[in-house]
């Protein structure tokens, strides 16, 4: 994203902050019938995925729209800083959300043959929430990042 568009997005976010607050009331009503979200469930999933290792912030970058109009299909790109050589590469990236009915999004397994540790996909978000990614490196270290997406129309509709 260029600097100019980044700045434009920032001011747009300020403008829309009020509108998002209003929409929040509607989303809560809708969620009363949905499956309850277990707090901390996403952390359990991550801990299990990396075998309980501690994650340090950094190296991982999540690119998502700050405001996702349609929660059914939110584009997401996760990239990890790594030379991707046989001795130093990303082994896996685990992605979870903290407010979907189920926290898991996906696990992506890389090899040095990828040349670049980056994956793009489209995900479902039932409401505004954080997306958290853990990257497991070949040396055993774990790095993490999080990003928030504001969702105006949830992605769990029936």
């Amino acid at each position, binding site marked *: 994203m260029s600097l100019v568009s980044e700045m434009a997005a920032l001011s747009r976010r300020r403008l829309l902050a009020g509108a998002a607050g209003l929409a929040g009331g509607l989303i809560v009503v809708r969620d009363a019938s*949905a*499956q309850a979200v277990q707090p901390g469930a996403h952390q359990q999933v991550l801990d299990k995925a990396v075998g309980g290792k501690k994650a340090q912030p950094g190296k991982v970058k999540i690119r998502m729209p700050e405001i996702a109009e349609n929660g*059914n*299909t*939110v584009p997401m790109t996760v990239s990890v800083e790594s030379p991707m050589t046989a001795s130093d590469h990303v082994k896996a990236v685990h992605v979870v*959300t903290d407010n*979907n*009915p*189920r926290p*898991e*999004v*996906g*696990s*992506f*397994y*890389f*090899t040095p*043959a*990828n*040349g*670049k540790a*980056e*994956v*793009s*996909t*489209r*995900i*479902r*978000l039932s409401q505004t929430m954080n997306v958290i990614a853990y990257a497991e490196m070949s040396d055993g270290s774990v790095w993490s990042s999080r990003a928030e997406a504001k969702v105006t129309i949830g*992605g*769990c*509709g*029936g």
Partner: protein
Amino acid sequence: MSTARIRLPATAKKGEAIEIKTLVTHTMESGQRRDAQNNVIPRKILNKFVCTYNGKEVFRAEMAPAISANPYMAFFVTATESGTLDFVWTDDDGSTIKESAKITVT
């Protein structure tokens, strides 16, 4: 019936990391939705995706219901030799969707 589409450059320079974009049609029924009679619609998703390059696994993904319908997946592979890339998606019911693409490395 599901169909898969793959997009990658037909030719690449040796050592270049090329982007491979994949798109497959599938409802990815999350198991969270209810039908008109308020019964839960059972989960049915593609839960696994594997890409092999000349028979060797280079990229794999495990997918949860939070992956959108018609899963899109883009990733990189370093072009090392001419050959075939094979793509396999596995459904919850055990069936698979397969697609392959050729690449010429110069």
